[in-house]
């Protein structure tokens, strides 16, 4: 489904197809706010997404230069030398604006804000620049939900299908 106009995009609920297409085409994710601490939510998401074949590049000025899960931590999005497909925002809603601007500047195709993070002004700027935007969702949970893993833990995936889905 083609979605380019920000004024048509509903950020309260997303079609499964929209989220599925994003997770299918994205390979390199820059995770802003990734923590080197193993029991932080960002570390969980990073480790899980790596296990599903995504490359996740951590961005965190406090931990810059360290290594997290085999990847060097960068101080900002603009310091990443490689091409980034998606920027995942693990920061407070209020500071998502400059992150969105950096995501546009480095040519990312998707701006994703984590569960609990929503900044409509930042989303509108990113969409105007041609990025697809997801807010208030976790890519780990969405990946698990859309690939029949979330139900393993007793969660309601909202998916009804008679098609066999391979893990």
């Amino acid at each position: 489904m083609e979605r380019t106009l920000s004024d048509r995009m509903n950020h309260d609920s997303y079609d499964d197809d929209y989220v599925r297409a994003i997770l299918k085409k994205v390979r390199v994710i820059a995770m802003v706010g990734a923590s080197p601490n193993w029991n932080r939510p960002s570390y969980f998401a990073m480790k899980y997404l790596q296990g599903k074949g995504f490359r996740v590049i951590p961005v965190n000025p406090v931990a810059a230069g360290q290594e997290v899960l085999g990847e060097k931590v960068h101080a900002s999005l603009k310091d990443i030398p490689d091409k980034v497909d998606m920027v995942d925002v693990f920061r407070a809603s209020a500071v998502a604006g400059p992150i969105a601007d950096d995501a546009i500047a480095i040519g990312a195709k998707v701006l994703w804000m984590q569960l609990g993070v929503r900044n409509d002004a930042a989303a509108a700027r990113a969409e105007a620049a041609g990025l697809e935007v997801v807010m208030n969702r976790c890519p780990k949970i969405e990946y698990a939900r859309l690939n029949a893993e979330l139900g393993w833990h007793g969660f309601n995936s909202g998916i009804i299908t008679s098609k066999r889905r391979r893990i």
Partner: protein
Amino acid sequence: MTDSKPDFETLAIHAGAQPDPATGARATPIYATTSFVFDDVDHAASLFNLQTTGFMYSRIMNPTVAVLEERLAALEGGRGATGCASGHSAQVLALFPLLSTGDEFVASNKLYGGSITQFGQTFKKFGWTVKFVDPDDMDAVRRAVDEKTKAVFTECLANPGGVVVDIEAMAKIAHAANCPLIVDNTLATPYLLRPMEWGADIVVHSTTKFLSGTGTTIGGAVIDSGKFDWAKAGKFPDLAGPCAAYHGLTFFETFGDLAYTMHCHAVGLRDLGPTMSPFGAWITLLGVETLALRMDRHCANAARVAEFLTGHKAVAWVNYAGLPANKYNRLAKKYLPKGAGAVFTFGLKGGYQAGIRMVEGVNMLSHLANIGDSKSLIIHPASTTHRQLTEAQQIAAGAGPDVIRLSIGLESAKDIIADLDQALNRAAGN
């Protein structure tokens, strides 16, 4: 189908049960295995740290049980569910993430008698204190619930009294005190009532009853709406604070609206251990597929039996909320428009002794301590399920000495009525 909202009947058959990814089996396989292999040590570590999805050990989760969990979560309109060994263990699991030693919760005094004993007696050993209140008196509920209250617990359609509780009002009182409302929805089932649509945060079930439907297997479930803000409430450290059993992981921050259900599995089932067996889950799934059809018939039969009893000379009163003259009929119309369930009570003019003669005089109805079976069931609560209670507690719970409880099954209404008629006449000494 993914973007439209399927109806209840469709969810009851399909939710959670895609064809088996390993084999393509269309019916849900029974995964009779205690354990699941790890790919490598790192995969094992990720699973133990809750960093990835997957199976480890069937005490905590199992693919067959998971199908039932997702099915029930979908039917109740919840975010996630935890299957467990029985309805009683569901009550322990539901409260376990919320209460610690010294904590309090408020519960309806019209609950099923087994719940009253569990809450009032056995939970004392955990240091959990229950305050019982009359759910007919919302002012009394309001006075009982305060900032110390960690949960409010009620049935909407109560067993055995035919009581209907105003759960929307109760949810408002609970939320004003920053605590969740837990509703035992065993008697109504999600086909007749979805408590989360009225503000309930957590629903518990004895799946033993109408959900499995044929009296074959014991089971329970806890379903979470995912809507309660455990951090904002400021009094649920097990969910919103660091968890020592997982090296300081904070469930609510890490798992968001999945946190409560994650906790029920990863701490509740792991450390208390009341697991549902895959076989039990499979039998229950068979029942759930036909829930809508069965509940319509249960309710239609119950309404006919209630009408018959109302006109019988040996019967003093009938407490079925579906009867227009019943004091709960207004609430039944609001919460249970498709039917007032199939479990209700009536009183015998002959009192306690007539009650005993009645349950011994039936031929087709079964005298036993269960409800929600395809078979019609009868019991005299004062001499059985409610005998641990004082007479005052029995009367408060709608189980006084003259009370007979019926669970109307799926036989023909004519045959159920004929058996009751002959037993009533014998009990009255005619």
